[in-house]
């Protein structure tokens, strides 16, 4: 008994052996082998343990439909679980191991489950452990949650590495006129003929080799080479090892390309590419998959589908057994029998049909195959198959007639066209009763189908079907409606007889429908008895088709068994549809380069590197990174920001404010436009002046604030908050394009053009004077509060300066072209440092603005009215503006809305947090009376302060205590409610 590698034939290179490791054993295969064929060549039959019962499992197929040989490939951070050994190309140094077993797949302790398999029917765990009597009579899931952890451990597939994936993946875009999916004879023929007509064709084939089922047939190399060369010569772009896993709207396909693997990838080597392919027309030439049927112990190692036996023989030069039993219901099995017999195996073929294909039988018998009709394999004996029980047809079942020793069982229940991609587009599968399979007869989209995917089984028929669609595709490309396509009628000599299960009277056999999830024929019948008769319920109750093969093998059989139980025809029971992906796609490929520090875009100000060189610790502000604080040696963040804020109030500080949104508003109607979007007047703003403005949404709530500078009669420079920059820009574009197209205004984001620095503190003017070519332009007379000037640095670099203050001190914002930002900052810092100035970050900026009661995004959170934030007096009564009508709604004008306030701890040594709820001391519950938006330890006051909103505002809370309730963090702290303007309320300092 044994597997034999033939000395001739096959598509393996005997002169190029490859070393690999399986469960610690060092083994050898050949170049051209799949991992499955290499393992089989080494007589490795038990490769896995099943999901639930831990039954031994081995290779069941030779392709993507594999249900048994799911392995873990790779080690450490390159560990990849649930890899189908049948589609994994062998490479030198490959390391594979078994999964769902302990200590290994050959001797698995978990196999004890198999002894209790009669109890483990569908739904066993839920029925038994949920609401477990007498502890949780019919209710509760606490115990279940405990059991579930154990159950999950015992049942399952491979485990992921928890380490980050070290490999590189790409997401790429590809465009073509026609995408042909499938590189078999039909796909290659259609692609070649289309390309010959000048059409730009891309052909994707999931296998590493082109040829489709020709690869499994003997002596086909010349034909495959001719087909491939013709395609290449006519200009088809051929992509092997690329699976089109999904079809989406408007001709978009998702594809996964696997690049050649090595044990130790080079530094920048890409492992897989996720392609988004956009095609005008798609040709589905995806072939068909052979299914098995349900018979006793049909999941044992050494039991495969019939064509898989042929694939291993002809493609991999592996004769998998000496004594072979083949059982099935269609002509396809005769080729396998013929080839194996020619290769020296002892072959017995059991055909369930009464009427056999005469010529095929004769050919097979001439080659030494023993053929019997009206009989089939009904049961398999042995841990690994070593004998079969043969039954003959009796009524609607079988009667066991004999037992036969063997070392290989090959079974076929028919072929299922791969219609997955069509199903992704919503095409309805139709049951083809003669061929016992689902087909798709039409689609509404620019998709054609040919070859076995359209139910043509013979090579010549596949070629003809491919040729037949070419005019349709060309018509479709030139915008004409096309005729759709024709479904084949198989093309076998003798008709099929349905064979979904070999039922034996008075015998209970463990016959699997979906081996990957251990769903058996009896589970389907149990589902029927318990009323789960709809296809959707059947699926969810038994988990049929929910494993990683997505029901490629089991769905049709499950459906047929349910139809049988219900006494209905298959189409009356329903059908299953398929969702993408056709085969699994690694998350790594979908995320591609969007990982680690490239998970999302990082936006750097022009001073990013300068800030880092000067000791900044950065923090995130949206996509930006901004300086958080500049700690001196040994300083904590608190010490650093208190020093920075104190320095600003005493001398001068410099802060990178480049991240503020900046928008150029230009044109003859620019002033009118601003007048309409801001609540306050802008029409009469003088050139050389800036004004603080608030804009509302249509619904009357506050949207954003900022200063807008008038640089010329028709030229404004608007600043927005960092957070709302993009939103405001989109809003302005929308207003101009949709609402007021008559206004002659152009807006453009200049956020990237200008880098900005806030120069704040009593010495700020001295700093500017030191760097400007004409220092006088920033004197108090030349540049009063809210004044704007465009001037130059001593080096000649142009800058624009406004005297505006966020900190409450005398302060300026100075902007230059981003490329000169470091140069400008060097000059400013050289002037500020000797004045005992400092660099300050976001934390100090926050402290300064909270002391001053200036609002940011934390306060303008989209729920706030002008009155709430204390801006109502700014609103013009003489002009309309966006939001001015809806802001008058009664609910927004009612008394007692929460209003912006300052918050101090009653006990000044106390502390509270942003996010705390403000409550009445005797009513600490629910939503309370308000909330805290921002807190800081105030350097000026020497204690914690905060901003927030509370019902009625500061006036309503004079002499009244409130509590900042923070039950999960600091607990309850008694607070005092004051005006938000806690520092220099009259504004003398910033105007001074």
């Amino acid at each position, binding site marked *: 008994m044994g597997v034999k590698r033939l000395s001739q034939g096959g598509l393996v290179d005997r002169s190029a052996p490859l070393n690999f490791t399986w469960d610690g054993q060092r083994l050898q295969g050949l170049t051209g082998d799949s991992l499955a064929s290499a393992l089989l060549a080494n007589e490795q039959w038990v490769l896995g343990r099943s999901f639930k019962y831990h039954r031994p499992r081995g290779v069941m197929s030779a392709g993507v439909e594999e249900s048994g040989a799911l392995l873990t490939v790779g080690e450490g951070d390159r560990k990849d679980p649930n890899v189908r050994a049948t589609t994994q190309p062998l490479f030198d140094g490959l390391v594979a191991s078994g999964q769902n077993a302990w200590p290994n797949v050959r001797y698995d302790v978990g196999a004890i489950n198999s002894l209790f398999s009669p109890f483990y029917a569908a739904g066993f765990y839920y029925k038994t452990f949920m609401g477990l009597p007498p502890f949780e009579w019919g209710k509760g899931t606490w115990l279940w949650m405990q059991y579930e952890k154990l159950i999950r451990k015992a049942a399952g597939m491979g485990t992921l590495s928890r380490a980050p994936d070290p490999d590189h993946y790409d997401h790429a*875009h590809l465009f073509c006129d026609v995408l042909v999916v499938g590189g078999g004879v039909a796909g290659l023929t259609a692609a070649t003929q289309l390309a010959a007509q000048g059409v*730009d064709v891309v052909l994707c084939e999931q296998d590493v080799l082109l040829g489709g089922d020709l690869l499994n047939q003997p002596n086909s190399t010349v034909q495959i080479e001719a087909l491939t060369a013709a395609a290449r010569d006519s200009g088809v772009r051929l992509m092997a090892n690329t699976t089109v896993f999904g079809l989406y709207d408007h001709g978009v396909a998702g594809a996964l390309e696997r690049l050649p693997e090595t044990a130790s990838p080079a530094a920048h080597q890409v492992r897989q590419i996720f392609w988004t392919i956009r095609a005008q027309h798609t040709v589905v030439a995806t072939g068909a998959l052979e299914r098995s049927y349900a018979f006793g112990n049909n999941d044992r190692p050494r039991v495969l589908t019939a064509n898989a036996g042929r694939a291993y023989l002809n493609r991999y030069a592996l004769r998998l057994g000496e004594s072979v039993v083949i059982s099935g219901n269609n002509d396809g099995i005769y080729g396998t029998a013929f080839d194996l017999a020619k290769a020296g195996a002892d072959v017995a073929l059991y055909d369930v049909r009464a009427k056999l294909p005469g010529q095929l039988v004769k050919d097979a018998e001439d080659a030494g195959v023993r053929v019997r009709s009206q009989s089939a394999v009904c049961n398999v004996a042995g841990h690994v198959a070593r004998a079969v029980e043969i039954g003959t047809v009796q009524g609607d079942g079988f009667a066991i007639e004999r037992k036969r020793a063997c070392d290989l069982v090959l079974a076929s229940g028919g072929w299922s066209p791969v219609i997955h991609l069509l199903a992704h587009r919503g095409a309805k599968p139709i049951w083809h009763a003669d061929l016992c399979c689902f087909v798709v007869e039409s689609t509404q989209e620019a998709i054609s189908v040919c070859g076995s995917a359209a139910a043509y089984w013979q090579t010549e028929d596949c070629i003809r079907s491919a040729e037949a669609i070419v005019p349709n595709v060309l018509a479709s490309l030139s915008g004409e409606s096309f005729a759709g396509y024709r479904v084949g009628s198989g093309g076998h000599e003798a008709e099929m007889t349905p064979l979904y299960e070999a039922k034996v009277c008075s015998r209970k056999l463990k016959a699997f429908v979906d081996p990957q999830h251990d769903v058996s024929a009896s589970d389907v019948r149990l589902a029927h008895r318990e009323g789960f008769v709809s296809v959707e319920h059947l699926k969810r109750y038994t988990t049929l088709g929910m494993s990683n093969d997505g029901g490629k093998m089991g769905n049709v059989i499950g459906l047929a068994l349910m139809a049988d139980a219900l006494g209905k025809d298959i189409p009356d029971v329903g059908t299953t549809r398929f969702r993408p992906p056709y085969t699994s796609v690694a998350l790594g490929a979908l995320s591609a380069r*969007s990982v680690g520090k490239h998970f999302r875009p*990082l936006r750097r100000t022009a001073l990013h590197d300068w800030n880092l060189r000067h000791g900044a610790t950065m923090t995130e502000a949206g996509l930006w990174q901004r300086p958080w604080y500049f700690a001196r040696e040994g300083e904590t963040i608190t010490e650093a920001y208190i020093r920075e804020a104190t320095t600003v109030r005493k001398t001068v500080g410099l802060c990178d404010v*480049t991240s503020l949104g900046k928008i150029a508003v230009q044109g003859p109607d620019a002033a009118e436009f601003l007048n309409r979007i801001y609540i306050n007047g802008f029409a009469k703003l003088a050139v050389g002046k800036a004004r603080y403005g608030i804009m509302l949404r249509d619904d009357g709530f506050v949207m954003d604030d900022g200063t807008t500078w008038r640089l010329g009669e028709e030229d404004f420079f608007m600043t927005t908050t960092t957070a709302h920059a993009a939103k405001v820009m989109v809003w302005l574009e929308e207003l101009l394009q949709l609402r007021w197209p008559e206004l002659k205004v152009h807006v453009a984001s*200049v956020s*990237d*053009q200008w*880098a900005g620095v806030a120069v704040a503190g009593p010495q700020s003017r001295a700093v500017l004077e030191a760097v400007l070519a004409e220092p006088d332009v920033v004197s108090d007379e030349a540049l009063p509060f809210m004044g704007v000037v465009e001037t130059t640095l001593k080096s000649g670099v142009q800058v624009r300066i406004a005297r505006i203050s966020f900190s409450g001190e005398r302060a300026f914002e100075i902007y230059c072209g981003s490329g000169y930002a470091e140069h400008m900052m060097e000059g400013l810092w050289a002037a500020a440092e000797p004045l005992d100035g400092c660099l300050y970050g976001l934390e100090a900026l926050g402290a300064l603005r909270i002391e001053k009661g200036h609002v940011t995004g934390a306060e303008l959170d989209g729920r706030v009215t002008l009155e709430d934030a204390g801006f109502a007096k700014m609103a013009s009564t003489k002009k309309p503006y966006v939001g001015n009508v809806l802001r008058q709604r009664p609910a927004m004008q009612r008394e007692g809305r929460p209003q912006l306030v300052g918050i101090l701890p009653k006990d000044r040594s106390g502390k509270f947090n942003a996010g705390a709820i403000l409550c009445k001391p005797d009513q600490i519950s629910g939503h309370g009376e308000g909330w805290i938006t921002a807190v800081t330890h105030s350097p000026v006051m020497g204690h914690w302060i905060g901003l927030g909103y509370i019902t009625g505002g500061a006036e309503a809370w004079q002499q009244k205590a409130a509590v900042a309730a923070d039950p999960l963090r600091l607990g309850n702290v008694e607070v005092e409610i004051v005006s938000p303007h806690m520092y220099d309320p009259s504004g003398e300092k910033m105007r001074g």
Partner: protein
Amino acid sequence: MDNFVSALASMALPFKSERLHIREVQCANYLISAWAASLGEVQQQIAVQAGLDQPLAPNMGAGSVLRVEPLKYWWLQAPAPTLEPAAATVLDQSHSKAVVIIEGEASKDLLNRCIPIDLRDSAFNDGALASTVFHHVGVTVWRQADVFWLFMPRTYAQFLTESLLEIAQSL
């Protein structure tokens, strides 16, 4: 330009491999925005001042002027063209973009790993221009003969170029 610091100063540019060459270019960028009523006049003026045979179609570029939107042009050299103030607004955006030029046989492969634009000759030939996205960031790509110009917003340029160079090393 003595004190000018590029957004790509810390990037390993130029990049050269057998199949790719990526280098940074410094160029001016004036945004010219016409009004619908004055578009014809602006088109004519721009064509004359740029020395073009005929006005540019939208999403096309030639010489050193690109028509990025139906009403908007980028003028890539200093000084800005002289136009009637009533005909268009002119805005200096020279610091707002970082620009790299990509050439070599793998340039389309590289770009199509970054941007979802059909770069086949039949769809995107000499002079073609597209505004598109690269890792969620708006960018502009322009083809000049067999060379591609990639305009990136300055503040995202380093982030995008890191990706570009990583991918380039794998091609």
